[in-house]
């Protein structure tokens, strides 16, 4: 069996593990620096194995050594933004966590594909890439799959059709600045532009952009994890099984779509090697403008990062 290490055992990390176990995709190591958290959740999963027929190993630990030999490492560790916390504070904390984790990955799992989930996503991807020193295609951010599944669900709800029949592609950064490609979104092959009025599509797009915020609003404390976990697990499965799936993923661009040296969400073929191929599609002027805004938002985050960070130095 292949091996997946999930760093961070909060709700997103644990739910990702759940999906991996349910499909018997790989053995799993859960790592969390908070003593007892990964251990307790791993054990709870193992108690579930007889009922659900899991046959992989699930280990919970505080020690990074346990990720040794992992084929995929999922990075979910980090703090969530709390009311009153400024952006810089969140960024510094999560960059530090990502640094520590990435160095452990480089040391113990040098062959792994890294899937980054920690926010701010496109910036943390950059840190993971620099700290691991891995090939560009080995570091991928999860954002587009989540934005797509939310968009698909809202469309399915609006049309009263089965969500499994809706396919969508989104571009750009995660959340507010995402760019859904409505003309490439279809239900059983029929473009939604033929099924829904433009105004409705715009509403659904807006709802997708603030999809994470909507759930935080309901929960008051805590944020979404079922759909995020499912999105990560989908990418993990694509790598582990070398599925070569075309998914929206945040990858390091070197000129594609006219951008260089930033992570941005674009259609990517995900397989055993990681981000195996970036697919460039033609964009309308409107879409290009939206992508530009998105790239600018990511660039702003990277500039903030550069103001205090240089790779391989500073406190860890």
């Amino acid at each position, binding site marked *: 069996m292949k091996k997946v290490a999930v760093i961070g055992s909060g709700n997103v990390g644990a739910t990702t593990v759940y999906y991996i176990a349910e499909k018997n995709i790989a053995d799993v190591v859960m790592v969390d620096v908070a003593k*007892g958290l990964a251990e*307790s959740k791993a054990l709870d999963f193992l*108690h579930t194995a007889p*009922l*659900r027929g899991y046959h992989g190993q699930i280990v919970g630990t505080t020690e990074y050594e346990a990720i040794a030999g992992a084929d995929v490492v999922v990075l979910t560790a980090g703090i969530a933004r709390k009311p009153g916390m400024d952006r810089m504070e969140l960024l510094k904390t999560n960059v530090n966590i990502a640094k520590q984790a990435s160095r452990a990955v480089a040391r113990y799992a040098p062959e792994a594909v890294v899937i980054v989930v920690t926010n701010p996503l496109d910036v943390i991807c950059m840190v993971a890439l620099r700290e691991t020193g891995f090939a560009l295609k080995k570091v991928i951010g999860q954002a587009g799959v989540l934005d797509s599944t939310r968009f698909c669900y809202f469309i399915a709800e609006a049309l009263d059709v089965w969500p*499994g029949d809706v396919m969508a592609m989104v571009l750009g950064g995660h959340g507010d600045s995402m760019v859904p490609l409505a003309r490439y979104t279809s239900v059983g092959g029929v473009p939604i532009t033929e099924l829904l009025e433009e105004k409705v599509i715009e509403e659904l797009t807006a709802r997708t952009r603030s*999809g994470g915020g909507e759930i935080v609003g309901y929960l008051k404390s805590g944020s979404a994890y079922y759909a995020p976990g499912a999105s990560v697990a989908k990418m993990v499965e694509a790598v582990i099984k070398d599925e070569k799936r075309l998914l929206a993923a945040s990858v390091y661009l070197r000129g594609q779509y006219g951008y260089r040296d930033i992570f941005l969400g674009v259609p990517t073929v995900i397989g055993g090697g990681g981000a195996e191929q970036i697919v460039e599609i033609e964009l309308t002027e409107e879409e290009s403008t939206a992508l530009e805004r998105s790239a600018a938002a990511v660039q702003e985050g990277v500039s903030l990062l550069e103001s205090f960070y240089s790779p391989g130095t500073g406190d860890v």
Partner: protein
Amino acid sequence: MHYVTVIGSGNVGANTAFFIAEKGITDVALYDIRDGIATGKGLDIMEAAPIRKYRNRIWPAKTLDVIADTETVILTAGKVRSPGMKREDLFEENRSIVAQLAAEIARLAPHARILIATEPVDLITTEFARCSGLDRSRIMGIGGCLDVTRLRYFASRELGLSPENISATVIGRHSDAMIVMLRYCSVSGLPLTTLLSEEQQRKIVEQTRRAGDLIVNMAQRSSAFYAPSAAIVDVVDAIHMDLRRVSCVSMLFQGEYGISGVAMSLPAVIGRNGIERVITPKLTEEEQQLLRSSAGQLEKILQTGDER
């Protein structure tokens, strides 16, 4: 459309809805007394539907009136343990929640099946049966079946074999006083007692007794919820698909082994109507005594509460 109603959208309630969606058993109405929780978790699960290909809907219920048309009510509401607490310590607080719900459910959904996961499960199941006045065949506490999945896991680890082909029976209280019937445990039909040494057998029994406590103590801020939710959904599946599967559930005793009026786990055939048939395995004198003393303890806790 058929649906089950989950009352309480904390970790156990939300994961129960989630497992039901994953397995495609039925629609779920998710309810919580706290504003927004059921809506938020329900929406999060549905947003995974395109990826996970769910065929069912999970929807938030604004009021408890939804239970009027539901087939099964799953009760997960109530406080959970913190480290150092015994399950009984939750009784006073959770009892009042359940007493209220029991009356409401008896009025609105007299024909529904009721699954109870609120702790302490045997006491809460007893209280529910008493307050609702519903037939005991409709009321099932998630006790023995959770202990069974844990025992199967520990046995599989000790044997180095897949847990799938291991079957086990645990009866009595969902507590330290559980009765693990090792002679009823087997691997593809082969008795477990012939495959494990006595020391190994003692070890897995002890691990099963302490499994819930261990997770509460490790996790600090929550108790187990994956295995409990899986145990609930296993029973939901048996009811909705009318599987007539044998499962250990907490039920009101009515003369079994000379005990009446309190709930503990026994194996039962679970199907469309809930408990279709109770199975009373032959117990040793020692086991019968343990079961009677467990019943006495439950009765005592219930009476102490009544006097307050």
